[in-house]
Each structure stands twice: as C-alpha cells, then as structure tokens.
C-alpha cells in the first residue's frame, strides 16, 4: 500500500482564530486527548497486526538454531578394569541410568546417572545355565534389547527393563531391571561367537545374526515366549576376517564387512548360499551399522571416512538393489571405532580412535556436533530421546553430555536442495513431511510447494485476469447504470461465497463433471482445470475491477481482501491487484469520451462531498493527467503509488 499523494495529511493551523477562550481550551484539550488516543491505539493496533509476523518469525527461527551440547560429567566408570570387559553400553530414556554389559563378570551393571556410586548388578547367568563366558554383546538402538555371544557358540537374548513409578510428590522413580528372554545355540560345535547383531520388527520379533570365530555366519528369528527356531547358516566364500555384520529386521538383507576391504551383500530370502553382490572398498570397514529403518548402511573406515550407502534399483522392477555411496560425512582424524545410530531419527553418532565424537544427520549430510573425549572411543550410547550422549573411552572414562538438537533435519540444503533420500533411485526434490513411524525419513524440500503454488496461481490467473479485467471494463464503461446497480451487489456478494463452498463444489461436482466431459483423455489436464475453475470462481469479481476503473470509487482495493480463500489461496499472489489496477489506465484513456465525467460522478458511491466544483476540477485534472500515462500504465514509474489508480 503506497503512500498517498492526493490528500496529504493535514494538520490544524497552529494559530486558529480564537473566538471564545473557554471553549477553545476545551476544544484544544479534546483535540489533544484525541490525538494521544488515536496515536496510541493506532500504534497498538498496528503492533498487534505486526505481531503475527513476529509470531511466524518466532516459530520459524528455532528451526535454524544449531545443536547445543553440554558436558554433565566426565569420570572413571565404576567397575571398569580393561577395555575388552565392556561389551555394550546403554542409556535409558529418562537418562536416569546408564548400563553396560560386563563380559567377564557375566553381569549387566546399572549406574545411576545422578549418583554414580549407586550401582545395581544383574547377573546374566542362570541356575540352569551357570556360566557362559561372554565374548560379544550388541544393544539395539531402540527398546533396549541386548544380544550376547558366548565363548561356547551360544547366543543369549536379554532386555534391560526400566520400571517407572510415578508419585505426585516425589515425581518419577525409575527402577532398572534385566530379563533374560532366552538363548539360542548358534554354533553347535561350541565355537566362540565373534560378532552378533540384533534387530526388532514391528511385531516385536527379534532378528539376529552372528559370526563364529571360524567365519561361519548364521541368522535367525527369535520370538519371545516361543521355543526358539534353529538359526540358519548363510553360505558364500568370504575373504579376510569379519569386522562387522548387520541384518535387517526382515531377516533378508545381510551385509558383512571384512578387513580385506570387502563388503558382501546377501538377499537371504532369495539366496542364502551366495552373496548377491560383493563390493571392493578402498579402506577396511571398522564400524558397520544400519541407520534406523534398516535401509541405509553406515560405514566407518580405518582411514576415518564415514559414509552412508543404500540400494538403488538397476532396472525398474528390481527388488534386489545393489548399494552405492550416497552420503559422505565429515571425515574423522583417525580410524572410526564406533557408530551408534539414533533410535528415532536419521541421525547417528560416530567415535574415532583419537577420541573425536561427531553427531551427524544422514539426510542433510550435516555434522551437527563435534567434540573430543580423552581417549579412543570404545563405546557410545545415544539416549532414546536423543537428548544425551554417552561415550566411553578405552581408559574407562565416561563422558556424559546433554544435547539440545530439536531440528536436525532442517538445513538450507534440505529445504531447497536436491537430496538423495532413502529408497529413491536418484536425488530429487520431495516434500513428504510425515510418516507413520519414527523411522520415516522426513523430506522437507520446499521446491515442490513453491512450484505448485506458482502453478496454481498461474492457471488461476490465466483465466481470472482477462475475465475479471474485461468484465470490469464492461461494467464500468459500457453497462447501463441500472443493470450495474443490480450486478455490482450480486458480485460483491459472490466475494463473500465461503471458500469451503468453492472447495466442495470444485472437488465434488466440477472435477467429476470435467471427467465425464473429457472422457478418457481428461485425466491429465483435469487438475489444472479444476484449480483454474476454482480460481475463476474465487477471483472473478468484476465489481472489484469495476471499482478500480471507475474513478473515485473506494471499495476497490478493499475488494481484494475479501478474496480470502484458504483452499485456493495459491491462486492469488499479492501482485494480482496491481496487475488489475494497471490495466484500467488504458480503459480510462481510450474510452473516456464514452462516459461523461459528470455522469459518472453522479452515481459514484459516497461522493456527497465531491459535488464541490473545486473538487470536480481537481478530479478532471487528475483524470487528464492519468490519460497521458503511457499505454497500459505499465511504464509508469515504479515508485508512483499504485493505490492512486483506485482513486484517480
């Protein structure tokens, strides 16, 4: 809304003739009070109106706030003797307890986070099964399930349980516990287990994979409270020592990495006997994990590289997809020792042999946090609510930090860039903000939304502008006044037609109608047509234009406010009124002789005060001035107030 120039604000002359001093003082006082009142309330209202922008800004800004971390404590872990002793590390969702699997002692120790001296120990051994020596352990990123491998070829599955009691006065109390869910004989010949991996699917069934010391691989499914099924062996020639293996929650996609720089990929449902693909890598994999969702692989290499890979179709109907490098993350200064994926989003933590810890986010390839601990990172735990990080170095020092990272998925690149999302065959602009579960990769590209908005606006305007402008010209210049008097209110009322009605009709009546008319070929262009038609209904308000091209009318620019439709708002960028207003310049110039100013003046709304000859003169002058504006008025200097056109 440009500044006015037709009637600049006036101010009362300082020295008004004083007729009656008493009266004038009162008048002055009132004048003064009114001045203050209007100013304060005016500013107040403007501020309230402006608040909405403040509000939008306040809501949007935190999205771009970087992640924060704060160290809570760093100290020696109770009961720590040697690095090999700690097989797995965990943290409960309330961050009240941290726990670790103590292999040689065959126990799980729960340490209270507030008071580290309080340690509760639960034995993994049972009476019936006294002493398996544990060699490996793995904890799932969600739901605190643990798999342990023994020196005699067995797998034990356990779960850390945290019982929460709530009291109005004392608040929440968390009591840790451990339950042994069962055990599986993975290698009947008693070979020690070298690696074990565990997943849980939506039904709660557990999928495991394990490697024996001699390199044999088995996978299987474990269902709680049911007799365990025997694990099935996986076949295939493997070179080198296995450094990592992962299997997805469907017991289908199995990956094995070796120190001879090889990565093997199986589709177990298709072929258990041989790998589907073998990949040559430039450096041995030292840490291998699945990102949540079990689609993308996270690999940490001996040279400090961190990469995520996932499958991309080669042919359109491929079910088995060979993997390729998708994202590379900030390189670590030393060999990657540990990767800990988040249980809730596409973030993960990596630790290196020099003590560097990075928090990365997969979708946007960003490193959100980076800090160092005292020694080589041996174990990592990322709290289920993603608000705390726990690192254990080989010297047995625990490093506990709280993390504030509410919007890891938002970055400039995520909003406007082309990203390669999981499951896609190539990078793309995608908006898909929500999924049914936590392992969904949210896609926030604004590009499709922007294009869609412009498209909707374009189709709408394509039709609405000519119809509205020409109808307005006709109404203002050629139509009989009596007909106009009838049509104008009708159209004003149309402006009031609720947007929901337009949406309802466009969706439920117009769309099927167009389909029937267009028959089989209608499907493609139909949507634009519906948008277009909706926009037309919404925007074709010649009355607005009629006002604009009718000199002296007032309601014109307010008309555009009324066109608020939430459903079809896209079809209405703020530039429309300008376009509309520019065109009448032509109309007035060309057809001015058709209507005599005085005649027009007579039926102008709200012009009681304009009968003044002076004003009429002024009005004519401005009309003539306008008539000299170059064709279409488009060449008018930009800075000239556009609202002017409304009044002429």
């Amino acid at each position, binding site marked *: 809304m440009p*500044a*006015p120039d037709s*009637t600049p*604000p006036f*101010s*009362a002359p300082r020295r*008004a003739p004083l007729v009656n001093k008493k009266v004038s003082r009162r008048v002055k006082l*009132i004048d003064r009070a*009114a*001045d203050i009142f209007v*100013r304060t*309330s*005016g500013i107040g*209202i*403007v501020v*309230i109106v*402006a608040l*909405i*922008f403040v509000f939008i800004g306040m809501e949007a800004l935190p999205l771009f706030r970087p992640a924060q971390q704060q160290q809570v404590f760093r100290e020696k872990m109770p009961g720590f003797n040697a690095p090999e002793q700690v097989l797995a590390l965990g943290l409960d969702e309330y961050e009240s307890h941290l726990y670790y699997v103590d292999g040689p002692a065959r126990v799980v120790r729960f340490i209270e986070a507030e008071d580290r001296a309080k340690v509760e120990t639960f034995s993994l051994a049972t009476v019936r099964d006294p002493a398996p020596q544990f060699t490996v352990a793995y904890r799932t990123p969600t739901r605190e399930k643990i798999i342990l491998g023994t020196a005699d070829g067995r797998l034990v599955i356990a779960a850390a349980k945290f019982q929460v009691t709530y009291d109005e006065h004392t608040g929440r109390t968390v009591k840790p516990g451990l339950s042994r869910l069962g055990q599986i004989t993975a290698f009947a010949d008693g070979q020690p287990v070298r690696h074990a991996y565990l997943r849980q699917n939506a039904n709660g069934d557990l999928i495991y994979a394990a490697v024996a010391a001699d390199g044999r691989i088995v996978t299987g499914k474990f269902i709680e409270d049911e007799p365990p099924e025997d694990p099935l062996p996986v076949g295939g020639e493997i070179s080198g020592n296995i450094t990592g293996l992962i299997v997805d929650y469907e017991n289908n996609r199995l990956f094995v990495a070796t120190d001879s720089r090889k990565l093997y990929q199986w589709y177990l449902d298709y072929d258990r006997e041989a790998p589907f693909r073998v990949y040559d890598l430039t450096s041995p994999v030292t840490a291998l994990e699945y990102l949540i969702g079990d689609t993308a692989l996270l690999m940490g290499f001996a040279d400090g590289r961190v990469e995520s890979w996932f499958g991309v179709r080669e042919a359109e109907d491929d079910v088995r997809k060979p993997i390729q490098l998708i994202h590379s993350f900030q390189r670590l200064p030393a060999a990657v020792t540990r990767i800990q994926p988040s249980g809730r989003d596409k973030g993960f933590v990596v630790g290196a042999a020099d003590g560097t810890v990075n928090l990365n986010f997969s979708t946007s390839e960003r490193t959100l946090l980076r800090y160092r601990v005292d020694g080589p990172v041996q174990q990592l735990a990322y709290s289920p609510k993603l608000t705390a990080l726990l690192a254990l170095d080989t010297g047995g020092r625990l490093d506990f930090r709280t993390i504030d990272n509410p919007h890891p998925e938002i970055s400039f690149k995520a909003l406007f860039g082309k990203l390669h999302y999981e499951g896609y065959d190539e990078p793309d602009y995608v908006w898909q903000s929500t999924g049914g579960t936590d392992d969904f990769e949210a896609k926030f590209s604004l590009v499709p939304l922007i294009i869609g908005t412009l498209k909707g606006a374009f189709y709408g305007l394509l039709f609405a502008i000519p*119809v*509205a402008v*020409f*109808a307005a*010209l*006709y109404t203002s*210049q*050629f139509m009989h006044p009596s007909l106009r008097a009838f049509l104008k209110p*009708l*159209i*004003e*009322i149309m*402006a*009031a*037609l*609720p*947007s*929901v*009605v337009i949406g*309802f*009709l466009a969706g*439920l009546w117009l769309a099927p109608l167009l389909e029937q008319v267009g028959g089989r070929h209608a499907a493609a262009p139909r949507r634009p047509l519906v948008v277009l038609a909706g926009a037309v209904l919404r925007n074709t308000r010649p009355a607005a234009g009629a006002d604009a091209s009718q000199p002296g009318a007032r*309601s014109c*620019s*307010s*008309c*555009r*406010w*009324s066109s*608020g439709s*939430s459903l079809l*708002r896209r079809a209405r*960028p*703020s530039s429309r009124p300008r376009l509309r207003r520019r065109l009448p310049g032509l109309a007035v110039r060309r057809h001015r002789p058709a209507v005599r100013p005085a005649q027009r003046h007579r039926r102008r*709304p*709200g012009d*009681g*005060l304009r*009968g*003044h000859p002076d*004003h009429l003169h002024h009005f004519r002058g401005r009309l003539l001035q306008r008539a000299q504006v170059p064709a279409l008025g488009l060449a008018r200097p930009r800075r000239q107030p556009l609202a002017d056109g409304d009044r002429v």
Partner: protein
Amino acid sequence: MSHSPLSQSTNAARRIGQFLRRGDQFIWLSGGAMGLAALLIVGLLGLVFVSGFTFFWPYNVVTADRADGTPVLGVITNSQEERLDPAGNVMKAAQTQFKVGARELYGFDFIWIKKAELSNFRVDPEVIAFERQEYGDFYGLLHGIEYKGKPVADAATAWALLQEKRPEARDLAARAKKIQRDAIGEVNAEIQRANLKLKVARRKAAGAALDPAFENPLKESLARNQARYEQLRLEAEALSAQAEEYAAVVGTVDGQRKTVPLAAIVRAFRPNQMSKLEKLGMYFSRAAEFVYGEPRESNTEGGVWPAIFGTVIMTLIMSIVVTPFGVVAAFYLREYAKQGPFVRMVRIAINNLAGVPSIVFGVFGLGFFVYFIGGGIDRMFFPDMLPTPTYGTGGILWASLTLALLTVPVVIVATEESIAAVPRGTREGSLALGASKFQTLVNVVLPASVPGILTGVILAMARGAGEVAPLMITGVVKLAPELPLDGHFPFFHLDRKFMHLGFHIYDVGFQSPNIEAAKPMVFTTTLLLIAIVVILNLFAIRLRDHIRKKYQTGAF
C-alpha cells in the same frame, strides 16, 4: 454498378478495419467477459440452489423385482446409462441407485443395481417411510403396533393407531428431554457453583478446617440439589420409558422384521399416497426442522440451528471488534502518523497480511489468544477449574478475535481510502471555520467516509463468515452441546465452543461416513450459509446506501 467480389471483399476488410479501429472488438470482448463472469456466478448459485432445494421433498418409494426374484424397495436417487469402450466392451453398465434405508439391517443406505436385472417397477400405496431418530430412514411395510411388547394392532389398523399414538410418544420424549436439558441443567449449574465455592475455600484454607457457618449451607445445598437431580433423572427416565411403550412392527420388503419405538420416529408417512399438496407441506415442515432443529446422528440428520446461531454470533462479535480497531488504525495511519518510510512499511505489512494463509492466522490465534491470553486468564481468574481449561481452550471469543485480526486489514484499507477520498477543500473549509482537527475529523471526515468504512466492514464480514480453516483450531466443533447464548447466568458464554455452517459443510461434506445420505444436506447447508452471508451483506449495503444518501443531500 454491381459490386465485384473483389470490391466486396475490400469493403468487408474496410469494415473490419473500421471495426477494429473503433475498438468495438474490445467492447464485445469485455461484454463477453462480463457475461461469462455473470454466468459463472449465476450458474454456481443455481447449482447450489437446485441441489440443495430438492433435499426435503418426499419422493415416492418404488418397489421393483430383481433378477433373482427378491424385491427391492426404495427411493430412486440416481441412475446411469451404459457406456461402451471403442471396442464395444461394457465400461459402465446401465444402473439405478436406490436408497433402501434400514442401515442397521443392511449395513448400507444406498445400492446400485443393474437396470437389466430390474423389472416390474411399481408404487405400492401401503409402503411407509419413517424418518427415525437413529439409523436414518426406513422404508418398508407396517405390520402392526406393539404396546409393551404385546401386539395391539395388526397391519390393517396399525397406521391409524400409529398416527394417534406417535405424537403422544414424541411428546413424552420431548418432555423427558426438556427435563434433562432445562431442569437438570439448572440443578447441575448450582451443584457446580457450590462445588467450586467449596474448592476455592478449601484451597484458601490450605488444609485447615472450614468455617462450618460457611461450609454447612453449601453442603446442604449440594445434598438438596443432588437429591433433586436424582428425582429429576428418575422423572425423565420414567417419561422416556413411557415414551418407548408403543412400538411399530415394521418389515423390509425382503422380509426382515424390526420394531421401532414410536418415540424414535420423527416423521411417519406414506409417500406413495400423498398428494402434491401434502408433499409440499411435508417439504416445508422438513425445511423448518432443518433450520430450527438440533443436529442428529453426528450432524448428518436433523437441523443446523446451533450452526446458524454460531455463525451469526461469531460474525457479529467479529464485526463489533474489527470496526473500531480498523477505523482507529486507519485514522492514525492517514491523519495522525507522519507520512514517511515507516508508515509506508506499515501499509506494505498490512497489505501483505492478506497473503498470509488464513490457517496461519488460526495457528497464531491458537498460540496467542488461546494459549497465551486464554491460559493467562485461566491462571488468574479460574485457577480452581484447572486443569480443565475455561478460556485456555478454543472458544467463540478467540475464534472471533482471530477472524477480526484476519479481516482488520480490509477495514483499515477501506477506511483509509474513504478518508483519502474526502476532498481537501472540505477539510480546509472546516478548519478555516475554526474547527479543531479532531472536530473536523469527527464532524466532517468521518461522516463522509462512513459508506467506505461500511464497505470495508461488509467485506470483512463476508470474508469472516466464510472462513473455516482458522476457526477449526480456535474453537469450532463438530458438536457443541450448548449455544454460546442461553438463559443461564452470565447469558453470554464467550468461552464456549460453537458450531459453524462453514465447518459443518466441511465436516459433513468431507468426513461424514454416510456421505451419500448427507450430501444433499451439504448443498442445503451451503445455500443457508450463502443466504446468511447475503442477508448480513444486504443489511450492510442498505445501511451504506442509506448513509450515503443522507450525506449526499446534506453536504451542500
């Protein structure tokens, strides 16, 4: 000399040239555009009108035999012709849609049947149609009447008895409902008031014993009211039970039987025996029920009175708020503020507010009005009701304020423009006569700009009444148990949630499970909403014209 073809064609070209030079083509073009625009608008209104207006007509109920011999009974609601693909295969078979009613027996209301399978169409005069309190319509045959489970009339006499007893049963049910609503509502309000007083006192006493002189009367009143409540409840239950005593035994055309309490029958009629005049009467009675009635069956049946009421009240509150705000802001911007970059920026900001999607206003309203201001009010004035929020949840006040915020730019812009249109000479004349700035504004500028302001308010109201998205999160509900205005103190309940016609359309049109039955109702509601907006608008337009005339003659 006769015109040669050549000269004829040059003549035509010249005429075309003339036509073009005169610019007539633009007149035709613009006239055509006007026609198209008018056609669109009239067509749209016509469509809504036609689709909405047939909703209440009691159509004949048709019986037909299907190929397997089973009869089908219902109102024919739609049909489609056969469509073949180019190769001659059937894409769409010719079919007829029946509304068969009796949803609880069949699991559906409507059914499409192939025309080829249907034969022997007939109109059985004995067929009855019930409009029921629950489960929608029923079409079938009346087999008898039961009184407390015992048959008291057979098929021959049942209709007369039904006619006699149904109004009685309906009356009993209505009385029971009245007790529940009014008398129990009153008792309940008192119980709540007493409980609240006790709660406040207990909180203030902080564990200490309460003054018996204060506590005992309250407790007594509580006990008294509790007893009264029990008594009223029993009374209502007795009435309800009595209303249910008579029941109609009805059967579907394929032989399933069912008893329907007479009190649950809103309307019973034999459409096939009704004359056009009777049908017209039924039509108006249904239309009246639609306007004045309460919604039933999760809003897919009954009336929309609460929604009409909510729409009007909300629009009025919004207008009352938005007018002074918009006018004062416009006067400030135009007459008091120093014109400069700041004011220009403010104008741009206000203009751009129109580009903010209305749902954002809703979110703002939720965050600012409901959570911030409403939550603050609750903590300050209603701490005893917490955690149940009073103003800290959506309500008609917050919805109206949100809409006022949404529409305030309309009024600001319209007012500004109409102030600007007041000629300088008039103001200068006023000032020259010794009037102060304020006097000039109030006595000269404001009256002259009232029509413009009203135009702004009209447009604001029009937009406000039709907006749905921001309301959905600031206080509109599918079903509001109480109106925002009633006979209980303090009469105006600004904290209550309300129903709204726009949302009703959205909800029934897009979310109703029995959409086929509800769709005509959507059109009818649309018609009603347009009518309300038109009435509000016409009122304001008339007012504007009136004022305009007044000042037109009075100015000079």
